[in-house]
Every structure is written in C-alpha cells, then in structure tokens.
C-alpha cells in the first residue's frame, strides 16, 4: 500500500483542490499515468501515479481543498507491475533496506528548534495555531521560542496571539462607540457566481501578496518604434520558418532578462534570513484562460534566444489553454511578465506573485506625437512598462535602473539583434 499525497505545486502553495479524479477505486493504474487533476492558484495540473497498482481508495473528494501533504488516495502496489522494470529486490536487499531505514524511524527527534536544513521545526499543535490565527512568516520570526534549543512551543504562540489581539480589541471598543452607519437602501438581489477552486486560489494568493508584500509601482515610457518596424519586417518569414507568430512578448522578455542580469536584486525573493538572489532567470508569463489565470514559467530564459523564447511561450500558452500544463511548468518562477496591453490598457498595476520580487506589465503600444531629437515632433510607437516591486527587497533606484535598462535595450533594437 502506498499513499498518494497532495503534492507541493509551487513554493508558496500550501493547499490544492481536487478537480477531477481520472481513476476510480478498483482501477488499474500505470506508473506515471494521470491519476488526478489538481487545481491551485497557478495550475490545473495532472498528478501522475507514483507507482503502478490498483487505486484502492480515494480519500479526498472532487472539489475539496486540502493542505499539501494530506493523503488523497491509496494505491495498492501490484507485484507484477513493480517487477516490470527489473527483478524485485531480493529478501536480503529488502531487509538491508529496512534495516537502513529503521534507525530514522526510531531515533527520537532532536530536542532542538532547528532541523538540519536550518528551518524551524514546528510541532503539529504550533502549526495548527499558526494556521488558525493566520500568523505570517514575518510574525513567526518574531516569536521567541522558550522550548529546548529555542523551539517555539504552543504556549509561545498562544502568548504571542494574546498580545497581538489586545490592540485590535481596543479598536473594536472604539468602533462600537461610533454612531451606527445609516442602513443602505435595499438593493435588488443579484446572482452569485459560485467560487471555482481556481477563483478561490487566486483570491487567496492575491490577498496574501497584498497583505505581506509592500508593493511599490513605477512606470517607464518606451519608444517601441524600432521594435515595431523590425517585427513588421520579420514576422512573415518567421511564421513561415517556425510555424508560430512572432509577437512582442518574447522580445520584451529578452529585454527583461537583460535588465535582470544588470539588476540581479530584482530577480530575488524576500526571506527572513536575507534576500535570496536566484541563479536562474525563470520568467512567468501570465496567460488568461476561461475561468481565470495561469502563469506558466519559461525556465532559464537567460539561456534562450528570442526565437527560443517565442517557441517556449507559444508552447506554454497553448498547453495552458488546453489544461495540459505539468507541475514543473508552473514552478520556480523568479519574475513575471504580464501583457494586459493586448486589451488596450495603458497603465497597469499588477500584484506580485509571491515569493517573487517583481512583476512587469506591458501596456498597449500606441502611436503618439513625441518630441524627438532636435525638438521636432514625430509620430512614434510608444508603450508603458509598469513595474510592481517588493520594496522590502529593493528600492526605487534599483527598480528605475532596471526599467531604464529594459527601455534602452528596446529603443536600441535593430536588425543586428540576433533572432536566433
């Protein structure tokens, strides 16, 4: 018997919703065969069976949301199926394996607040309290552990919560003394759209982002005339050769990658121990789908040409709309690019996807009269690039320097910039 657990579908993701069971109890499942569809705020992912066997029991019904690690199903391993890749381990090997694994199971947990990975070890009771009182990571870091080795005990959390709620209670009393607001005129009742799991997940993640990340916002105006001219010339040939459209998105992402290389502090995450600078540049690309939004990730975008980016984005977008994204496709993003401009927006204030430090919105490219060199007025293709950034991680100077780099790269675009 092996239990299938709710997988972690992204760094900040703590729970997932069962969208659809692809197998029913009693069904034979092959290893890696799709077992269940899971929805988180970022993905409608198909979770493969971890081993071959018979689906014995479904523990979580469709539509239910459970935390990461919760057992969702039980698969009974089939002997024949495990034998397929090679002969089953001999009795001696199995005994050795169990002997090897045994000490881990019986060794008492070290009486210390830190595990070997340096992360805080929290008891189930403490975890439950953190969940119940919605204690953020930042708040948790402020709680002083009184247990052995600095472990945070249940009592420590209860004391913290007691202290935290005192001012709130005082406010509540003040509010009660204020005159009651006049009753609003009765409105005709509307219809309620039930919350889809994806809607609920997006709501939770956006709320968390706005509540924990101090967003700052800045805009750069970019003259896209050179890019527009180049694309006009190159797009037909590109379509013919590659079979996909050459859009502005891969070009912008290329510029963003160059900008992030110059300002690595924007390709980073806030952590209580310090700002984590990411080695890879993985760009999330927001894709709207029927019932919400998915942000698949172009991994190691810094190693790709414009053509390579175009193909990667096209592939991700197609699979996103078909609901065929895999879990790795939505994981590991370090920065996000959003393209509301296709709908004609000119200023967009995007919400950062935690734990990233920034998100860039491409707004519409519109022709406008612009004062150019020699005080002449010319018609140019202009675009606003709007950057939301985590002000804990970086300051306005770095953000502006990034935008300036992106702008210069785009404005300096010429046919000499390699497509491949």
């Amino acid at each position, binding site marked *: 018997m092996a239990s299938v657990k709710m997988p972690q579908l992204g760094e900040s993701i703590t729970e997932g919703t069962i969208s659809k069971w692809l197998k029913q109890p009693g069904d034979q499942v092959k290893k890696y065969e799709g077992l269940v569809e899971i929805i988180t705020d970022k993905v409608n992912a198909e979770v493969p069976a971890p081993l071959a066997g018979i689906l014995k029991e479904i523990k979580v019904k469709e539509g239910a949301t459970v935390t990461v690690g919760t057992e969702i199903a039980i698969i009974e391993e089939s002997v024949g199926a495990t034998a397929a890749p090679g002969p089953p381990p001999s009795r001696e090997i199995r005994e050795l394996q169990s002997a090897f694994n045994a000490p881990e199971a019986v060794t*008492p*947990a070290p*009486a210390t607040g830190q595990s070997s990975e340096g992360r805080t070890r929290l*008891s*189930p*009771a*403490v*975890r*439950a309290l953190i969940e119940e009182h919605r204690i953020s990571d930042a708040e948790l870091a402020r709680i002083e552990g009184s*247990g*052995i080795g600095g*472990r945070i*005990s*249940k*009592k420590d959390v209860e004391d913290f919560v007691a202290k935290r709620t005192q001012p709130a209670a005082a406010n509540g009393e003040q509010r009660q003394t204020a005159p009651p607001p006049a009753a609003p005129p009765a409105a005709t009742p509307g219809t309620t759209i039930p919350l889809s799991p994806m809607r609920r997940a997006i709501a939770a993640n956006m709320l968390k982002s706005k509540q924990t990340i101090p967003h700052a916002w800045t805009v750069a105006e970019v003259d896209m005339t050179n890019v527009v001219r180049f694309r006009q010339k190159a797009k037909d040939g590109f379509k013919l050769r590659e079979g996909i459209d050459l859009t502005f998105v891969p070009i912008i992402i290329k510029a963003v990658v160059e900008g992030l290389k110059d300002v690595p502090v924007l390709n980073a995450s806030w952590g209580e121990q310090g700002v984590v600078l990411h080695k890879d540049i993985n760009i999330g690309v927001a894709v709207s789908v029927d019932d919400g939004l998915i942000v698949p990730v172009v991994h190691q975008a810094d190693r790709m040409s414009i053509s390579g980016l175009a193909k990667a984005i096209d592939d991700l977008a197609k699979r996103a709309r078909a609901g065929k994204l895999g879990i790795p496709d939505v994981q590991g993003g370090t920065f996000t690019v959003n393209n509301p401009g296709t709908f004609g927006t000119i200023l967009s204030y995007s919400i950062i996807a935690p734990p990233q430090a920034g998100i860039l919105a491409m707004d519409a490219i519109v022709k406008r009269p612009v004062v150019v060199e020699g005080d002449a007025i010319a018609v140019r293709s202009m675009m606003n690039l709007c950057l939301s950034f985590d002000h804990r991680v970086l300051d306005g100077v770095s953000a502006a320097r990034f935008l300036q780099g992106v702008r210069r790269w785009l404005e300096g675009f010429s046919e000499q910039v390699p497509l491949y």
Partner: protein
Amino acid sequence: MAVKTVIEAIREGMDEEMARDPSVFLIGEDVGNRGGVFLASDGLFKKYGELRVIDSPLAESCIVGVAIGAAVNGMKPIAEIQFADFIAPAMNQIIEEAARFSYRTAGDFNLPLVIRAPWGGGVHGALYHSQSIEATFGHIPGLKVVVPGTPADAKGLLKAAVRDPDPVLYLEHKRTYRLVKGEVPDGDRVVPIGKADVKRDGKDLSLIAYGLMLTYCLEAAEQLAAEGVSAEVLDLRTIKPIDQAAIVATARKTGKVLVVHEDNRFAGIAAEVMAIIMESAFDALDAPVMRLTGPDVPAMPFNQVLEEAFMPNVDKILAKARELAAY
C-alpha cells in the same frame, strides 16, 4: 462520606454486594476464617458463612475453574488470586474459557465472573509478589481489566465488576491498600467500567496513569504547580475497554502527554495509549508523547536499591515531566 483506605473500600464493596445479591460469593486462598492475606475479606466469613466465603486449595486453576462453573450456573463468583504473580496456573481457564465464553456461544451465555488480584510492587515483595499483569491480560479480547487507584473508585468499580455480565479482572495495587486514603461516598455508588477520570485539571501537560502511579502523579503534579507548570492528571481506571475519548481529550487539551506505569515497557499500556494519541490527536501535539515505565527485566528484585531502580516514583515522574514541559 467517610475517609477510608483502599482495602476498606474493597471489603465494604464485597460486603455490600454479597448483602444485596445472594448469588455473589467469594472463593480464594485463605479468604475464609483468615480473612485473606491482606484482610480484604476480614469479617465476611463470620457474616456470610462457609458456603459464601470459600477457602480453596492452593490451586489457581481450581479457583478460577470452580468460579467459571458456578457463573455458568447462575452464580456471581468473586475469585481471589492471592497475588497477581500466581495467576499463571489459571491462565488457561481465564483466556481459553472465561474470556471467550460469550463469543463462543454467540452471546447466548454470559460469564459474570470477577477475578480479584493484588498486583504491583514497591512493597519488597520481590520476584513472586510484585508483578504487573495488566498488559498481558489487557491484550485478551473478551476480558475486562480494571485498575482502581483510589478508595472511592475501588469500591465503585468492584460493584460494577460484580454486576457486569462478563468476566472482569479486578486489579488492586497492594501498595495502595493502606497508603491511599480518600473519601468514599455513602450509598450504592457504581463507577462505570471503561470511563477514565480527570483527577486533576491542568493545561500545560497531561500525566496519564492508574493504580499506584496515579498517587505518584498527583504528588508530582502538586510539585509541578509550585514550579509554574500546570499538570492535568488522567486516571485511566479501566485498562480494557480503554477510554479513548478521555485520552484524546486530554492530549488535545494540553498537547503534551506523559504516560506512567510500573509494568514493563515493551508493548505496555503506555504504548497503546501513545498509539491512540498518535492516531487521533497528532495535529494537537506540541511535543513527542513520552512514557515512564518499569524496565524490561524479568521481575522486580528484592534488593531495595534495585527495587527503587525498577519502580517509577515521584522524583522520576518529576524529572520526565520537567523534560516534557521544557520541550
């Protein structure tokens, strides 16, 4: 209400049950004229006569076997095993016959049998007068096992055991006989089998115990309170059927649990209690569930130093509880 010892409460319980129901009788070694080796039945022989207080041969299989036969024929025997250590010769009667009787007859027959046995150490009883047998018999389906720790519970559970339609192993800790005194409510008060009892309210950690260890845990809790640690003490009172709800409730309340018994550690009652907590209260735990038990050695030594090394006591409970509180 009057303050009584455990042995007085047991004697009173038997007396009242024998007076209430003429089918109740007592059989055991020296229970008659001698009044029992611990004087548990002192005076009953004179009061009820030799037909209801029967001195048996020195043969435990006979004591239990006769009691089973009487129970099948409508009597309500109380069989006394002089020391729990001596119960082994009667194991075949208890396990193979008494415990299975109702099951074997698909519930058509019951076996209203009480087996009383003084158990436990700390009385310099050495190898043959100190053993704990609750885990051994708690493992047997069909058998109820009760372990009162106070005079009131001793009397109330004795009444419940006599009135129970199935075999009940009634264990009385011999160290508590005269050591533990307490108020015993007047009148016909039955303490239900299968119900644990919170003997002291607390919020920081839970001590789960029974028998003599209950007294030690209550003493330890008193000292812990002086150190600023609020300890709840749960008295199991019944080993089988165990009160899962009460165990889970106290574990959920405090998040920290120490189980104490003097029986051997391996596969002891603590192991079962810990498993129940892991199954049903894991998400409320704030520390690993801990246990303090007798060691896995064959028997309790006579030598006082070694006997003390074997027995959990207040100091050992305190040390373990402090470790748990600090976790």
